[in-house]
């Protein structure tokens, strides 16, 4: 399964990179989201994936007795997911404003905005 995930990481990254090289702002944003997802899985994979053993200590135990999933990557990814929401929402709003001002989604048209638009 690790190999499939490795392949998946590659695809997510490739897709993300391809999208951020487009001219459309929406595609740029989607690309960033895909890159974020790829990174999350990469981090997840590095923590040695384990099936069906969440990092939760059993009801009557005080420490783990069995193998369990690595909690650190999970905590990192959780943080990353939430932060990426902040990023995405801000970017979306930025995009919305730019679109409202310039009426275009094309990044090339952002180079020389008219004075009064700013």
């Amino acid at each position, binding site marked *: 399964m690790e190999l499939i995930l490795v*392949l998946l990481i590659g695809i997510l990254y490739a897709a993300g990179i391809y999208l*951020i090289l487009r001219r459309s702002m929406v595609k740029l944003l989607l690309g960033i989201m895909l890159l974020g997802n790829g990174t999350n899985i990469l981090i*997840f994979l590095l923590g040695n994936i384990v099936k069906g053993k969440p990092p939760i200590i059993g009801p009557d135990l005080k420490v783990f007795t069995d193998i369990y999933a690595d909690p*650190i990557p999970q905590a990192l990814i959780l943080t990353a997911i939430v932060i990426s929401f902040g990023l995405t929402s801000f970017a979306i709003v930025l995009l919305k404003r730019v679109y409202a001002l310039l009426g275009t989604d094309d990044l090339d048209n952002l180079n020389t905005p008219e004075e009064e638009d700013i």
Partner: protein
Amino acid sequence: MLFTVLSGLITSSLIVPFGRFLKTKWGFILAFLPILLFLYYIKLVIPISQGSYFVQSTTWVPSLGINLDFKLDGLSLLFTLLITGIGACIFFYANAYLKGHKYIDRFFGYLCLFMSAMLGLVLSDNMLLLFIFWELTSISSFFLIGFNNDNADSRKSAMTALSITGLGGFFLLAGFILMGNIAGTYNITELMGKVALIQQHPLFPLIFGLVALGAITKSAQFPFHFWLPGAMKAPTPVSAYLHSATMVKAGIYLLARFSPILGGNPIWTYSLMIIGGITMLYAAFHSLFRTDLKGVLAYSTISALGILVFLLGLGSKEAVIAASVFILVHALYKAALFLITGIIDHETGTRDLTVLRGLRKVLAPVAIAGFLAALSSAGIPLTFGFIGKDLIYDATLQSDSQLFFYLTAAAVLTNIFLVSAGFMAGIKPFAGKLPEQFAHVHLPYKSMWIPPLLLAVLGVIFGCIPGLIGDWIAGPTANSILAQQEVFHLKIWHGFNLILLLSAITIVVGTLVFISNKPSVKKLAWIATFDKISPEHIIKVCVQEIVLFSAFFTNKMHNGYLRSYLLKIILFAELLIGYQLYLGGPLHIKWETLSPVSFYEVTTVCILIGAIVLTIRTSSRLTAVVATSVVGYAICLIFVFYSAPDLAMTQFTIDTLTVVLFVLVLFKLPSFLNLANRRTIIRDAVVAIIFGSMLSMVALRVLHEPTTTNISKFYGDYAYVLAKGKNVVNVLLVDFRGFDTMFEIVVLSIAALGVYSLLKLRLKSSDKE
């Protein structure tokens, strides 16, 4: 000692609130600061001359070896006396010179800052501390040169001076750090005990080169001399103080201070002698062709600095005492000449030597001062200059037997030119018939003409009592440069010998040169034709080329297209990752450690890949957004399979909210335009696929690295015991790594505020319309 260094800094900062006070007639009170400091140091002359020294140390950054170590020995004392003594003259003088100037408070602020920095520089016994003060002097000099900041030339000269001395400072720091690392200490006194260690180190030539570069840039040695004539754009008191008496001698001070550590070997001797020799001849020759009084003085100053470097390079006992005396000699007569130039400029409004004549009739005391200073500069017997020149000839004559002839010839030639230059600055403006246009010229304030007169007269007095100066000041200075205890006796009269003959030749020929050489615009133009091969021109051309290249480069790289930036960054990253992967050798897959594959997972990943392809291929925005969210949900499922319930829940909810967001904003936008042509698409696809496969390889490689689980184990073991929680992920977030979470929610809040203000702002502006 620390206090004397700080006093200037404190005064300088006090000028900020009380600067207005300087503009009143009580402004001269500020000049009592250098006077007090001067008195403080002059009373230390006797103990220092008996061979003792004073040390003061305060820890500052002990971990980096930077301590406020101060040490006062003969060499430092000579410089502190120059800084405070001439400083006092300058403070009085400048107060009158700049009377009524709008920014006089600023001027004195910089001047106090400079004085402090310079005092700190000569008192520091720690290399890094010395460097800090070194840079401070460069910076204050920058402000002072550019003091008339509405003048473009002034600004340009200030920039040149700062870049040259700043560059030198940079080299100096590198040299200091190298030296400190080798010796294991930054304390200069301690370094003296590690001379062998430093000099035998293979990096010694580099260290010497770096330190020497620092010194020769600061002291305006060839080929970096050109910033000094430019620095003459500063108000004349500044030129007198910084650019002849003190700051430019910081390089000399540095060489003198480090000569026991770095000196005494062929590298030191020959490189410094060559640099000093070229500088003194080149600059002395150039000084003959200047028509601007300050230009003459600037070039003769460079030449004098060249002599000092030359003598320090020579490094013999005679050379060192000659250098010690010449520092004082030069400071006295050159500061006087500068101040006189300032008076002439101030009163007549011109510094053009072709015009100035006969001013003795209107500026009598100034003319006396000029005359005396010129005599001292020429080295007429009974002036201090005579002693100085004698010692220089003595040093060259007694040097290495094969070279002494050439060295002496160079020294004589330089001195001949300097005699002429001194006469040009000190006598020429006052001799001859007073032209009509200067008839109305009148004597300035007393506080302007007394300082140069005082300095010039001192030159004569010292010339009459050389023994005292030798015992009290020059002797201890030479002893600290040589790091030994010798007794030096300076005498007025040595009897009839070769030195006297050389002196006589110098004076006579120099006078002849002065009489025959009439500075004119034509000659200036002639010498200017050689500017193309001057170091100044060469360096300027280099700088221009660099500027052109960087403009070209910037325009090429920063073309304003985001995707082109990204493409470059990605390509470069690919290069780096690829190289690293190549270094790592072939990839191995350990099949036995891999976890088994189940049907659900394969299906999920297939859906995922399908969604990704759809995201890329679709021309509808909504489809793309939905497909991206499908990617998110599928990843959520992967988290579920692999025991990350918290992640799964978060991913699910966030994904839902993101879709809602997109839909709220984007449903009105038109569908994608296909803006790229086929070639770009293929190029981007190739770049993207390469990047993706590289990342896969990185992941594969990391997968088989042995993972250390110490940290995870720690958290697992202590989650319940210490933090009383059983969901380790949550315990990590709210307890072990609570700080991170705190900052995370702060970031989230900022994002929310950003969104809020972006949209509200928009509403407001549309309200206006």
